[in-house]
């Protein structure tokens, strides 16, 4: 599988994603610099974490006018798998590829630690519903907000992908690290090919760091891709 990792000025988990995809999973992964205008040759795209454009204006906001954006939107709208991690999630909401917005954490601080998330919905980046993963978070603006109608739409259409939970999968407010509405840690778009999440699966995909839970999400992508290529052939 060929994966493009978009590199905006200020991206800083671009290497984290490339390293796992290329060096750990041994996939064909490469950076796509923000000044490029095409995603041709990519089977999937990662919009990585970091501080694109220095978080100026709002996290993710300026990526909207980046040269690569038109190609990214087209790739997503034509059904290509897009994974937005952390700042990538913020960017995808700013581009309108995902609903809602990410605002300042409830306690107003940057927070870096492991959390548990429960998969709500199997999909191109998620294993079966009910699977509990331990993943690290590292963000100051991860509080997912959406209005009531938007929330019920997300629920009705099965777009809620991940919820913050305890080690057993129980969803309680005390396990919500940032105050996200309904403990939401990640959501799909309506077509379920675009996922945005605040936790970092790419930083938990190697035995060396003591946690490989994140690989489950890349395995889901690999399974979905091989299923779709078989279907196509």
């Amino acid at each position, binding site marked *: 599988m060929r994966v493009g990792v978009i590199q905006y000025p200020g991206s800083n988990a671009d290497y*984290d994603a490339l390293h796992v995809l290329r060096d750990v999973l041994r996939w064909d992964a490469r950076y796509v610099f923000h000044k490029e205008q095409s995603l041709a040759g990519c089977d999937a795209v990662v919009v990585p974490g970091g501080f694109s454009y220095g978080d100026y204006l709002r996290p993710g906001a300026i990526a909207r006018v980046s040269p690569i954006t038109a190609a990214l939107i087209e790739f997503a709208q034509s059904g290509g798998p897009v994974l937005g991690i952390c700042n990538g999630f913020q960017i995808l909401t700013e581009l309108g590829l995902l609903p809602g917005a990410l605002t300042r954490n409830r306690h107003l601080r940057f927070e870096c630690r492991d959390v548990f998330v429960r998969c709500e919905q199997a999909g191109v980046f998620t294993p079966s519903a009910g699977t509990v993963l331990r993943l690290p978070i590292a963000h100051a603006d991860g509080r997912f907000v959406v209005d009531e109608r938007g929330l019920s739409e997300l629920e009705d259409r099965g777009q809620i992908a991940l919820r913050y939970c305890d080690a057993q999968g129980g969803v309680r407010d005390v396990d919500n690290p940032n105050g996200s509405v309904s403990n939401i840690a990640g959501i799909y778009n309506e077509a379920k090919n675009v996922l945005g999440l605040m936790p970092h699966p790419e*930083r938990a995909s190697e035995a060396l760091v003591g946690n490989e839970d994140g690989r489950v999400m890349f395995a889901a992508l690999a399974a979905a891709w091989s299923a779709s290529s078989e279907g196509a052939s």
Partner: protein
Amino acid sequence: MTEPEINLALALLHGLTDDEWEHALASLERAPTYAELGVISVMWSEHCSYKSSRVHLAKLPTTGPKVVQGPGENAGAVDLGDGYCAVFKMESHNHPSFIEPKQGAATGVGGILRDVFTMGARPVAALNSLRFGERDHERTKHLVRGVVEGISSYGNCMGVPTVGGELQFDASYNGNILVNAFAVGVAKTDELFFGRASGVGNLILYVGAKTGRDGIHGATMASAEFTDDAEQKRPTVQVGDPFMEKLLLECCLEVFSNGSLEGVQDMGAAGLTSSSVEMGARAKTGVELWLDAVPRRTNAMTPYELLLSESQERMLMVAKPGREGEVLAACEKWGLDFAVIGEVTDTRRFVCRATPSLDPFRGSDVDLDLARAADIVVDLPIALLTDDAPTYDRSVEPPRRDSFTSDLASAPPLRSYEDELLSLLASENIGSRAWVYRQFDHIVQGGTMVRPGAADAAVIRVLCDRDQGGPEKLLALAVDCDGRHVSLDPFQGAAMAVAECARNIVCTGGRPLGLTDCLNFGSPEVPATMWQIKTAIEGLAAACRALSVPVVSGNVSLYNETRGRAILPTPTVAIVGQVEHRDHVTTLGFKAEGHVVALLGAPGRGRLGGSEWFTRRTGRVGGDPVGIDLDAERALQVALLALCQRELLASAHDISTGGFAVAMAESMLPSGIGATITIPGRGDLAGRLFGEEPTRVILSHEERCTQSIVELCEQHGVPYEPIGVTRGDRFVVDDVFDIAVEELRIAHDSALAFMDS
């Protein structure tokens, strides 16, 4: 703008002394210009010239088989094997952080990261060492919040994991906090870059952010004690932009790899002045700057301001002949300012030209031919600013011994040992630092193997050549100093700081390779303080020699005093170590029930001097200094490293702040597994539980490893004493206490809760 009259009064305002002013006049055989006075004052400031410490710094050992680059460059470097090296340095940003905590701390991080990547190394980790005043002091919470936020905002955005550090609160820092920032990077040894302006006729390039009026005279401000007007000095604090620095980092690494540069230097303290003067001094050349061409973000800047501005995120580069275009291309790719602003000469002089009242900010394009023929505003011998700058062997005077109390009589009655332990664990100097390190991204770059709090040192995996995905190197990183022990005995206390830092590396399975220091003291003009400086440096030197850890870089921060009250002498040290194999990594927590718990090292004499317990009991630093036996320390570290490398240990944790009982409790917290033990040593129970004598490590291991461990310890002449067994979920000491680990955890977790109240 008319320039002021240049005279002694103005020189004194610039921080020069009468003698220094006379020295300048005699050397120049004329009065300096206003810009020259600014240049001289900043280059002769304590911060830039090390004039009070230089004679003593020469005593530090700086060579060794692993040293690739010793002191004198932007950062030091040690060999990691396979043609790669670790490049690292620590620097203080104390004065600015007190005046404006967020920006002060942020730009401290920015400066140290620049020092590292200027050498051609991609930064892979950061540490910090922080000191604040008493917890209940009116400014403390504000300062802690600001400093942590500053470090967090800058380091996180740069994508460099902040993997460890230390934090202490003490009344002596009420008026002068300490913010010491450390960074380490990895580079190919034969592709290191140096701050040298080589090649007469080569062009000098300016890359990065535009120059503004921020930070003018920052170095001079950092070379004086505070009076009541500290708040008035806010304009001398720089403002950081980590996004700009991230672009500068990527741009520089790209430029370095294409071979178009002769030398490079970041603009840190004293900005354009010190960067160009230092580059010329190292290469034994001269430098001519055309100030008209300097990119600026505000109008009507004078040569004086341009030369002294400490605007952040700027680099000075010397291009190889005809290669400027390649630098320009990288700058365009990353959206950075670029300008040709001068050339290397053979005059050994620092010359600056500027056109009076020209203000290119107003839109007129700068004509380089005119700029290089403009009026001379600075013409100084480089030697006068560097090698011939004043140095002082200031007078020293040991303090009277009776200035410290050893008396516990005034202390309140002793509560139960159980309560004493719980209150120590809840101390802001001992308990959980999670409130701080959770605000730092400590996992970006995906290689953090041992996170903050899990072991005595952080361990990161670095893939030296990112594009090739290897080779893999494991770095162990730690930073240490306890100013209380240093204040009781500067020689022994400073040696203890080095020993503890190295012991932390070894406890984690690493071999110490090299050290960087940040020497924080009060005014060198006070003989008792100067004695502390001199004696502490001698203690550092002795310990570095005994443990074979050379000093490869460092920084001195003096005048940390307010209204005559100096900080505790705080010679902070950070060590970079290397772990040979993933399986050697050892953490501090017990791993399973039924393991042997043992003490490595002599049990100590129960002395309480300098301990957290003594300080809390009496409200002041005191007691008999505990001292250190460096031969015993060396033997312990050699044996301990062998134990880690032979994979005989389940855990290792050194005994430091809070003493034996606290170290035992900390070993229980990660897994919740308790232990039943006897307390080693003889004599006063409080001393044995809470004394902070060094050279002791708590181990746990499987029963089947005992024989091998005993043999290895005997072979190295290191005491080993089994003292109990891991068991259940309680910390049990017969006839002394029996506490649930959960209770220990609650106390430990509460240490920084006051920050949220």
